[in-house]
C-alpha cells in the first residue's frame, strides 16, 4: 500500500494522486489559488508550496505526484515566508480596485491575503492601467488578472468550447479569445464563476450591487433541463444576478436571461376577450365568467393542452382538474416533440425516461452523437461529453446534418446526406472502408458506450428506429447511457406523469377540434412553437373551440387565441420541482415575488377545480406529498427535504428493435433548427432590455434567421435545408 508522510502523519494514497489531493482528503490545510477540483491542476500561483524531503527547492503540492515513502512538511516558518513572497508578487501589480470591484466580498485573493496576514509589500510598483475588454456578456480586466489559467482550462475541459487562450509573455501576459476579436462561445459563464479575482466579470451584473447585500436562493433552472441548479442573488425584490452552484455549470440563459419575468408585456391581471379585444378583470370577476362558460362542461367536449414550463406539482394539479371534469383528453408538448421516435424508444426501453444519468456521459469511453446540435439542443450534455473526451480519453463520433464546433475533438464525423442516418449505421456495421472499420474497432475496445440523439435526427431520418437498432448492434452490455437531447424545461416531468401516449394523441385532438367536438379547451403553459404538419393543423383548429382558457405568462403566441387569459407565476416565483435530463428531481424555490396579481398554476388549478366541486390543494408541498410521492417513480419523501439530488426511479428494459434498413427517398428535406429547444419563448422575452451597452452580439436572446444548405456551407450535409426558426 503506497504511503506518504505529511507533517509526521502517514496517509495512504492511490497512484496518480498529487500531494494536494492526499492533503485535501485528510483535512491537512494547504492554501491554493489556481487549483480547481474539476480540472487538471495548473501550478501557476505557487501558493501551495510544500517542503519535500530530499528536494532542494519547495515543490507545488498540486502538480507533484505523491510517491511511496515521501516525507512532506506543509506548515513551517520557511514555507510560509516563501508562500507570502509568492502572494506578494501577485499583489504588487494588483490595482487598488477593491472598492469598485464586483468581486469584493467573494474574492479569493482578498481572502488569501487576509488569511496569510499580509501587512505590507516589500516594493512599491506602478499598477497597470490597461483598458477593459468587453466581450459581449463577459468583461475582462487584465489589470486584475492573476494569470492562474483557471478560465482557459475550465473552458477547455469543463465546457469544451476552448474559447480562451493566453497571449504574449512576461508582464504583457493576458487572456484573450482564442479565435477572433471577441468571444464566440456558449457564454455559459463558467469562466466568470471560476475566476478567483475580479478579472472576468458578468457585464450585466457589473456595478449593480455588492455581493453581501444580495439574498441568495438556489433553484432549479427555469430554462433548460440539462444544466445544474442556479443561485440567484436578489436585492430589494429584484434579481440582480445568476450564478452556478459550486462544482456545476449553468447556461447563458439562466445566468443572463432571468429578467424575462420583468418584461413589460407580462400580463398582470386576468383578461377576458370581448369583441376581439382583451379587457382586464379582477380574479373574482373572471371566476364568475368561468363559472358561466364552463357550466355545461361535459367530459367528451373538454380538452387540455399542457406545456413544459409547468412544475411537476402544477402538472399533477391540472391532471387532477381534468379528473374532476371526468375527461381524459390531455395532450402535452411531449406529443409534438419527436413523437414517432419516442414511441419506438418506449417499445425498446419500456420507459420514456432517459437511460441512466447525464453525468454517466463523463465516464463513457465512446460517445455517439446522433443528429444533435448539442450547443443549441442540450448544452449541458455537450459539457459532460467534452469532459469525457478530455479527461477520460473518450472517443467521439458524430453523425449529423452538419459538422459541429467541437470538430477538433471528434474522432469521426459523418454527414447524413438527405437524412440517411440509417445508411451511415449500415456502413458502420458492415462497410470495409477504413473509416468504418475504425469505428468497429472503437466499439470493440470500448466498455462504456453512450448515445445522444437529437432533433436533427428525428426531423430528418425516415426510420426513427434506426439508431435504436444500432444500439442493439453495440450491445446491451456495452451501452452505458442513452440520452435524448430535449432541453425543454420540464418535458421529462410530462413523460414521468404518464401523459404521453395516454391513449389520446395530438392527431385525435386535432380531429376533435376540426369536427367541432371540443367546446372547452384549456391551454396551460402551452405554446405551439413546433414545426411540422401536426403543429400547423393544431394552430388552425384551435379557433373552433367556444371557450379557450389560457394560463400563461405572456398572451402572445398560442395564448392569443384564448378568450379567457389567466396570468400565471413564473418558475422563479413558485415552489415546486422539475425533472431534469437523466431523471434528476430538481427543487424549484421561490426567488422573487410576482410583479402583479398573478397566481401560481397550482392555485389556479385549485380555483378551477372548485367550479367542478372538487378539491385540489393549492400548495405545492401538499400536492407533492399527497399526489406524487411514491407514485410513477417519484421518491417517497416529504417535499420539504427535496434538495435536487434525488432521482426518479425507472427500471428500463432492453428489447430488441425490429428494423430493416430502407434507402430514403431522394429530394431536399427542410429541417427546422430551433435554437435552444428549451422554453425558447421565455429566452426571447429576456431580450427586452440590456444593461450592457457593449454587447456586440445579443446571443441566444436574439437570434438571426438563417438557412444552411450544402451549397452555402461546406460543413452541412447534402440534400438538407437547415432553417432557423425565430420566436
Amino acid at each position, binding site marked *: 500500500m503506497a504511503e506518504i508522510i505529511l507533517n509526521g502523519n502517514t496517509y495512504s494514497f492511490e497512484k496518480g494522486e498529487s500531494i494536494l489531493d492526499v492533503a485535501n482528503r485528510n483535512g491537512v490545510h494547504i492554501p491554493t489559488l489556481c487549483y480547481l477540483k474539476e480540472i487538471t491542476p495548473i501550478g501557476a500561483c505557487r501558493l501551495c508550496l510544500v517542503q519535500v524531503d530530499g528536494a532542494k527547492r519547495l515543490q507545488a503540492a498540486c502538480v507533484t505526484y505523491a510517491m511511496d515513502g515521501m516525507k512532506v512538511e506543509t506548515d513551517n516558518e520557511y514555507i510560509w515566508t516563501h508562500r507570502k513572497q509568492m502572494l506578494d508578487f501577485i*499583489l*504588487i501589480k*494588483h*490595482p*487598488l480596485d*477593491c*472598492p469598485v470591484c464586483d468581486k*469584493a*466580498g467573494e474574492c479569493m*485573493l*482578498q*481572502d488569501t*491575503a*487576509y488569511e496569510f*496576514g*499580509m*501587512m*505590507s*509589500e516589500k516594493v*512599491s510598483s506602478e499598477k497597470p492601467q490597461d483598458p477593459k475588454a468587453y466581450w459581449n456578456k463577459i468583461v475582462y480586466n487584465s489589470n486584475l488578472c492573476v494569470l492562474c489559467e483557471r478560465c482557459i482550462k475550465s473552458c477547455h475541459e469543463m465546457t469544451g468550447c476552448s474559447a480562451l487562450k493566453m497571449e504574449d509573455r512576461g508582464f504583457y501576459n493576458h487572456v484573450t479569445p482564442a479565435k477572433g476579436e471577441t468571444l464566440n462561445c456558449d457564454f455559459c459563464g463558467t469562466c466568470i464563476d471560476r475566476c478567483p479575482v475580479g478579472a472576468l466579470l458578468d457585464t450585466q451584473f457589473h456595478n449593480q450591487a455588492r455581493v*453581501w447585500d444580495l439574498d441568495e436562493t438556489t433553484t432549479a433552472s427555469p430554462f433548460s433541463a440539462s444544466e445544474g441548479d442556479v443561485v440567484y442573488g436578489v436585492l430589494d425584490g429584484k434579481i440582480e444576478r445568476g450564478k452556478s452552484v459550486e462544482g456545476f455549470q449553468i447556461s447563458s440563459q439562466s445566468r443572463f436571461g432571468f429578467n424575462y419575468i420583468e418584461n413589460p408585456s407580462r400580463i398582470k391581471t386576468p383578461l377576458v376577450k370581448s369583441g376581439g379585444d382583451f379587457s382586464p378583470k379582477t380574479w373574482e370577476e373572471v371566476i364568475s365568467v368561468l363559472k358561466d362558460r364552463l357550466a355545461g362542461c361535459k367530459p367528451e367536449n373538454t380538452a387540455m393542452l399542457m406545456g413544459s414550463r409547468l412544475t411537476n406539482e402544477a402538472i399533477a394539479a391540472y391532471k387532477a382538474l381534468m379528473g374532476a371534469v371526468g375527461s381524459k383528453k390531455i395532450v402535452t408538448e411531449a406529443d409534438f416533440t419527436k413523437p414517432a421516435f419516442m414511441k419506438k424508444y418506449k417499445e425498446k426501453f419500456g420507459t420514456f425516461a432517459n437511460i441512466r444519468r447525464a453525468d454517466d456521459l463523463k465516464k463513457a469511453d465512446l460517445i455517439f452523437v446522433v443528429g444533435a446540435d448539442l450547443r443549441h439542443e442540450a448544452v449541458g450534455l455537450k459539457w459532460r461529453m467534452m469532459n469525457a473526451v478530455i479527461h477520460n480519453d473518450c472517443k467521439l463520433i458524430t453523425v449529423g446534418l452538419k459538422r459541429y464546433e467541437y470538430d477538433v475533438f471528434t474522432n469521426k464525423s459523418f454527414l447524413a446526406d438527405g437524412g440517411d442516418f440509417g445508411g451511415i449505421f449500415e456502413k458502420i456495421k458492415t462497410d470495409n472502408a477504413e473509416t468504418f472499420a475504425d469505428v468497429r474497432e472503437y466499439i470493440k475496445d470500448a466498455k462504456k458506450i453512450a448515445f445522444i440523439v437529437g432533433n436533427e435526427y428525428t426531423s430528418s431520418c425516415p426510420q426513427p428506429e434506426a439508431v435504436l437498432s444500432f444500439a442493439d448492434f453495440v450491445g446491451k452490455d456495452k451501452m452505458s447511457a442513452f440520452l435524448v437531447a430535449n432541453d425543454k424545461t420540464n418535458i421529462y416531468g410530462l413523460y414521468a406523469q404518464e401523459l404521453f401516449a395516454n391513449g389520446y394523441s395530438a392527431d385525435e385532438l386535432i380531429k376533435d377540434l376540426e369536427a367541432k367536438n371540443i367546446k372547452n379547451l384549456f391551454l396551460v403553459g402551452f405554446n405551439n412553437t413546433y414545426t411540422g404538419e401536426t403543429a400547423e393543423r393544431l394552430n388552425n383548429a384551435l379557433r373552433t373551440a367556444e371557450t379557450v382558457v389560457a394560463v400563461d405568462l405572456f398572451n402572445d403566441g398560442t395564448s392569443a387565441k384564448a378568450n379567457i387569459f389567466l396570468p400565471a407565476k413564473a418558475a422563479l416565483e413558485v415552489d415546486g420541482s422539475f425533472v431534469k435530463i437523466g431523471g434528476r428531481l430538481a427543487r424549484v424555490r421561490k426567488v422573487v415575488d410576482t410583479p402583479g396579481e398573478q397566481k401560481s398554476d397550482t392555485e389556479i388549478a385549485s380555483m378551477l377545480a372548485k367550479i367542478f366541486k372538487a378539491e385540489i390543494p393549492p400548495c405545492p408541498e401538499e400536492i407533492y406529498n399527497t399526489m406524487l410521492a411514491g407514485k410513477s417513480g417519484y421518491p417517497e419523501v416529504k417535499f420539504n427535504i427535496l434538495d435536487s439530488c434525488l432521482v426518479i426511479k425507472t427500471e428500463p428494459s432492453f428489447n430488441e428493435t425490429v428494423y430493416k434498413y430502407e434507402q430514403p427517398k431522394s429530394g431536399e428535406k427542410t429541417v427546422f433548427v430551433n435554437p435552444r429547444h428549451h422554453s425558447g419563448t421565455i429566452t426571447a422575452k429576456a431580450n427586452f432590455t440590456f444593461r450592457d451597452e457593449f454587447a456586440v452580439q445579443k446571443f441566444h436572446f436574439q437570434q438571426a434567421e438563417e438557412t444552411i444548405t450544402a451549397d452555402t456551407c461546406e460543413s452541412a450535409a447534402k440534400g438538407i435545408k437547415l432553417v432557423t426558426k425565430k420566436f
Partner: protein
Amino acid sequence: MQNMNNNVAEIVTVNMGPQHPSTHGVLRLVVDLDGETIVNVTPDVGYLHRGTEKLAENRTYHQFIPLTDRLDYLSPLSNNLAYCLAVEKFFGVKIPERADYMRVIYAELARVASHLVWIATHALDIGAMTVFLYAFRERERVLDMFECATGQRMTSSWIRIGGVRADAPEEFFKLAKDFVDEFDGFVDLYENLLTNNRIWKMRTIGIGMLNADDAQDYGTSGPLMRGAGIDFDLRRDEPYCCYDKFQFEIPTQPEGDTYARYKVRMKELREANKIVAQALENLPEGPIMTDDPRVAMPAHEDVYERMESLIRRFYLISKGFRPPKGETYQGIEAPKGELGFYIVSEGEERPYRLKIRAPSYVNLGVLNHMAQGHMLADLVAIIGTNDVVLGEIDR
C-alpha cells in the same frame, strides 16, 4: 409609623423626574416622603435605554466602538478604552508603547472632563452657581484639546482595537502642556470657593452616609467606595495600559459622607493632571497601532497606496475579524467607578453576548440607602455626589 414629632406619619409619594434639572439626566425618582423627610427612594430607570447590548450582537467588533462612546458620554474615551482592552484580550494583542501612553492621556483627560461636570452640576444643584461657570470654562479647554486631537468634542471613538486611530498633531501637545501647567491653579480656585465654605459644609457634611461595609456589600466602586474609606483603585491594583509606569496617589477619605467624596474627587482631579503631565513628558516615539495582522486596521495613507492594506481594510470592515471562541472581561477605573465589558464569542465576527458592567448602575442602587432620613433638598445633593450618568445606567 411615627415621625420626628412622634405623630402618626402620613406618607406622600412624590415623583421627581424624568425631566428635572437636578436629576442629571433622565432619571425618575419615586420618593416617599413623610413631611419633608425621605422614607424611601425608588429610582425608575430606562428612559435612555437604546438597546446597546442587543445591538452589539448584530455588529462586528469594530462597528460597536461608536456605541461605547455614548455610554458615559461625559468621558467618552474611557468607554472606548474599556471595550478595546476587552476585545484585545481575546487575541493577546501587544499594544505599542506610544499608543498606550496616548490612551492614558486621553483616559485621564476624560476623567478630568467628567469630574469637572460633576463639580459644576453638584455645586449648581446645591446652589453655588459660580463654580458651574468656572468648571465649564476649564472643560471647554479639555474639549478643545479633544477636538484638536480627534476632531470631535464629545463622542470621538478615537481609541481603536489595537491602538489609537491616529497620532495627535503638534497643536494638541502644546495645548495639553499649557493645560496641565495651569490646571492645578484652577482646582485651587474651586477649592477656595467650596472647601471651607460654611454653607457648603452644612449642605454636605453628614449627608448621604455610606460606610465601608455597606459600600462593599452594595458593590459600589470609584469615588463612592474610596470616599467610604476603601483603598482600592484598578489603576494601581490591577493595572492596565501602562499605568504601572506612573506615580500617582489614590485619595481616600474615611468619613463616607458627601463632603468626603467631594474631597476625594477634588484630589483625583489633581492626580489625573499629574498623570497627564508625566505621560506627556515621557511620551515615547513609535507607531500608534499594533501590527498584529488579526486586528490591526492599516494606516489610512497606506490604504490608498498599498494593495495589502486595501485588502486588509476591506476585509476587516466588510467581514470583520473573528476572535477565537471563549469569553473575556476587562474592567477599568472609569471616572464613575469600575466600567467593565464582558464579551462572549462563538468564533463569529459579531459577539454572541456583550454585557456592560456600568458603574453608575451599581452605584445608583445605593441611593436609597444613602437618602434614608434626609430631607428632600438633600436628595439633590446625594444624587450629585453619587455622580450618575444615565447613558451608562440605561445603555
